[in-house]
């Protein structure tokens, strides 16, 4: 009897946890899928923000993560141990924009569909992302010592680790909230 009771109680709690998780995630399908992988963070995040896989399609990650490509990774040598390279490539491909149900990933995929022959390696060249940033001036990014470059997403996108890019989460250092600047 005791065991049955214990089981029932356990089920109740796991059901609640499941429901919570489900609803939070339901809410979050808006942005891109957050990533929390230690190997990825350590291997790539040492030099730059560890961009979510959902920001580029499969074919982009497949090319970028080739050993020959990592030798010249936007002008830097970014060699990885072979096992790590494969693991990270698989992680990125499995969560790529064109496999994702997240809203912004879908918009990225759709914006790239017009140029199916292009394998885009730069997130900043994705048409959807480019369009979203078109009103930014050099003073906000390039000449802003606290931002410096468009590659530093997290300097302004304060909720990026959760995969959230909404306007009210954009705070440009030295300038303030984007929603205030825009007007």
């Amino acid at each position: 009897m005791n065991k049955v009771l214990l089981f029932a109680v356990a089920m109740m709690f796991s059901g609640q946890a499941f429901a919570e998780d489900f609803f939070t995630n339901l809410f979050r399908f808006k942005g891109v899928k957050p990533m929390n992988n230690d190997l990825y963070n350590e291997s790539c995040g040492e030099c730059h923000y560890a961009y979510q896989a959902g920001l580029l399609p499969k074919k982009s990650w497949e090319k970028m993560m080739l050993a020959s490509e990592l030798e010249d990774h936007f002008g830097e040598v970014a060699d990885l141990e072979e096992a790590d390279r494969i693991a990270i490539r698989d992680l990125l491909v499995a969560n790529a924009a064109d496999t994702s149900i997240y809203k912004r990933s879908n918009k990225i995929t759709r914006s790239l569909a017009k140029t199916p022959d292009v394998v885009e390696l730069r997130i900043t060249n994705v048409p959807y992302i480019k369009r979203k940033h078109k009103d930014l001036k050099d003073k906000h990014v390039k000449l802003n010592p606290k931002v410096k470059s468009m590659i530093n997403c997290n300097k302004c996108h304060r909720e990026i680790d959760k995969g959230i890019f909404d306007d009210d989460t954009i705070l440009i250092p030295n300038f303030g909230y984007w929603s205030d600047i825009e007007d």
Partner: protein
Amino acid sequence: MKKTIILAVSLLLSPVLAQANVIPGMLEGYKAEGGSNFSAEAGKKMWNKEIAQEDGSKRSCVTCHNADLTKPGKHQRTGKVIAPMAPSAPFVAAEEGDEPRYSTEKKVEKWFKRNCKWTYGRECTVQEKGDFLMYLKDL
């Protein structure tokens, strides 16, 4: 009595644990792979050696790591701040999850590989890596 022994042993070990430095072990490893007589002098010489690049500019370890190895360096191209190379330099975590230099062998090898290629256009030999570590370890 038992407690006293435990206390004594932990006191003895604490400086070792605090510094967890992989350099001695790596030097042993390089020896086993064929390196010998590692020299701080040779390491220093190579560290400062300027290599002409395709675009006409010159590159050495100093280009990004700062001539004063107890001070932070700055990446020539990206501007990224690089933690000081000297083990004696106080450790400052720039971001969550940062660890002091020379705490994992994998990370040292990762950057040897990348930076030797970036600077010399090839991977370094075990001898060269041993020389580098000899030079850096007592700074």
